[in-house]
């Protein structure tokens, strides 16, 4: 995906989320939570889109799921744990969890565990830029920019200008070190 396509896809995701929120009567109680690190910039962009469509910007938070991972024993302690920053009450909100790539579903599982420790949301939706298949848990995206089957040997990388990339791009590359 190139920069233009990513832009179109983000706009479309924003519209879809807004439509569904209106249909569910949740437009006023919407909140967006980006999963660190890939989901954070995407969540910010979606917040902008939703502000345009709904007239008000939904609150934005970030989650770092490092402390909720299920593979600590295999992979060891994470060298860096970024901030989890959820400053709005989660209680009763319709939360949109945002990540760049949906793969095994384990990150989303951890994010769900973490978010319920902040309160009880009314409902949680999952929005991703790319759903690459390969799920290891019964988790599905409510909104996906693109759905493609990618081999396990390959890595889907989302590069955004906010994260220092020269321009927005989604590329598929052979996985490093395996």
């Amino acid at each position, binding site marked *: 995906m190139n920069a233009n396509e990513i832009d179109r896809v983000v706009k479309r995701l924003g519209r879809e989320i807004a439509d569904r929120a209106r249909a569910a009567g949740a437009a006023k109680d919407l909140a967006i939570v980006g999963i660190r690190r*890939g989901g954070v910039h995407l969540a910010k962009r979606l917040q902008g889109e939703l502000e345009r469509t709904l007239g008000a910007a939904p609150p934005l938070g970030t989650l770092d799921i490092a402390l909720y*991972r299920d593979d600590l024993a295999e992979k060891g302690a994470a060298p860096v744990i970024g901030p989890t920053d959820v400053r709005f009450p989660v209680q009763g909100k319709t939360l949109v969890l945002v990540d760049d790539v949906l793969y095994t579903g384990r990150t989303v599982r951890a994010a769900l565990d973490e978010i319920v*420790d902040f309160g009880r949301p009314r409902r949680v939706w999952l929005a991703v830029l790319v759903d690459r298949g390969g799920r290891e848990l019964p988790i599905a995206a409510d909104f996906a920019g693109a759905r493609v089957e990618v081999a396990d040997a390959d890595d889907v990388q989302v590069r955004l200008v906010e994260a220092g990339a020269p321009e927005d791009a989604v590329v598929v590359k052979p996985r490093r070190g395996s």
Partner: protein
Amino acid sequence: VIGRHKHCLALADFSREEILEVLDLATSMKEVLQRPIKKVPSLRGKSVVNLFFEASTRTRSSFEIAAKVLSADALNWTASASSVTKGETLVDTARNLEAMRPDVLVVRHAAGGAPRLVAENVSCSVVSAGDGAHEHPTQGLLDAFTLREALGGLEGKTVAIVGDISHSRVARSNLHCLPKLGARVRLCGPPTMIPAGIEALGAQVHHRLQEAVRDADAVIMLRIQHERIGDPLIPGTREYSKLWGLNAKKAEEWLKPSCVILHPGPINRGVELSPEVADGARSVILDQVQNGVAVRMAILYLLAGGNPAEAESKPEAKA
């Protein structure tokens, strides 16, 4: 980087980068402590045993809370209630506890080097919670964390440590930590309480409080232990308090306005600190207590959190 350490026994063993890594991680841990549900599952199924041969409520509780917030199980073993009173040796006690398969042993002992002796004889990780007059590494880390938070960084800052330097493991850990982070350390106290040659660790020695705290960005006041009063080291409480204690008047006249005051606790009110200063606007003493939990969470997480060698080859887990 901290992956190369299996134990946390002394800050003398830690490099600048390793200390910074712990402090950065502690920042994230502190955020967990502000949440409505103060619990994360990262160390579920791990156990932490507090092995304390010296009385301590604050440090032991701090380790206990840190373990529990990370979902590890915490068990307290105190010397007075154990078979030590029946004559068991330190190494035997440690080996017996180890047979119960804990992941981390937290050891406090009146003899310097005791945690290292334990570490050499068990296969789990060992954290020192203070050994004799040697070191108190997690206190050194929480002081650095608190100073960094209060001063916005330690590079180029001046920190004065006042009190019984000779018997203070806190001062020793501070000395092995603060200079690595770019701070200048001044030591101050009665000449009988400052070890000869301590300048070699990179500190400046003063005997007058006013000189030691002039333009300092922070002052760490140490506790004067009651058992030292009246022995030849210092003649009496009143004289100590007059010469090396900090009261509101001295603080007002001698400290620069932004200077903060730390104390490892427990405070002898009216001896090293007057109540107005201990409870005043400059005091970050209660922040130290909260930061202590965050720093100990970071240490427990790094030591008990799986195999670090593999962690380095896989910098991030993307799922």
